[in-house]
């Protein structure tokens, strides 16, 4: 496995681990509901960012294009967490 494939494999492992933690781990930690939910959404956002930068190769894209999609992550998190925290 060459260096590029190796680094992408590490990204995949991180994504898979985060998914397991998020799906089956957080609920077992005795965290308050709100903290667990906020953590869940933030971990999901981190995963999205990894896919954008490492799989969609925005990491080496022009800053404007990269900034647009990093902005989408902020938009999506805001659209979910702001109403949630106001509920």
């Amino acid at each position, binding site marked *: 496995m*060459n260096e*590029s*494939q190796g680094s*992408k*494999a590490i*990204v*995949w492992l991180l*994504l*898979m681990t985060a*998914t*397991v933690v*998020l*799906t*089956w781990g957080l609920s077992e930690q005795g965290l308050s*509901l709100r903290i*667990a*939910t906020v953590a*869940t*959404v933030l971990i*999901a*956002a981190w*995963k*999205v960012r990894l*896919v*954008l930068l490492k*799989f*969609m*190769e*925005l990491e*080496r*894209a*022009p*800053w404007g*294009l990269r900034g*647009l*999609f990093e902005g*989408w992550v902020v*938009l*999506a998190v805001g*659209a*979910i967490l*702001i*109403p*949630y925290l*106001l*509920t």
Partner: protein
Amino acid sequence: MSKAIAEHRRVPGLEGFWVFIAGDMTLFALLFGAFMAERRDTPTLFEHGRQALNPNIGGLNTLVLLTSSWLVVNCLIAVRRGQARAGLNWLTGAIACGVAFLCSKVLEYSRELGDGHSVFSSDFFMFYFILTGIHLFHVVVGCVVMSFFWAKIRNKSISGRNGLAGLECMGIYWHMVDLLWIMLFPLLYLLR
């Protein structure tokens, strides 16, 4: 001068394709907001609906799509290096994962419909079926497009900058399908 060389940045795929990707993702972000706004009005009803879903299936589907995305990345690496056979193998795996997600989702829908849930049964399920249904349509299109590129790689007709750019666009589209599910899954199945 060395800094300019080190800072070389390129647009993956085709520039115009990113306009489509941005538009599609913005639509979903708006739907996320609409879901959350509706949930604010009837949180108990939404929680009731959420509890009828199976997060184990949702979590497994997430693992399947993540793996599919990774396999597409490996396909692209292989094709860029001129390793068409390896690229074909990676892409076969990616398509298989896409089909597995599709089958899983159909079985899940069957169970939910059998339990009496539908687009008309509650606002939660209206959002659930519409959001996951639109996403599932994207999965179907993605599997068809990946199959098209599978044939192109097999026929050795991916060549030059334009050919590779098309393959990159295929990958970008599929990663978008993946990342949309990464947000959809916790939104629908886990948010309490």
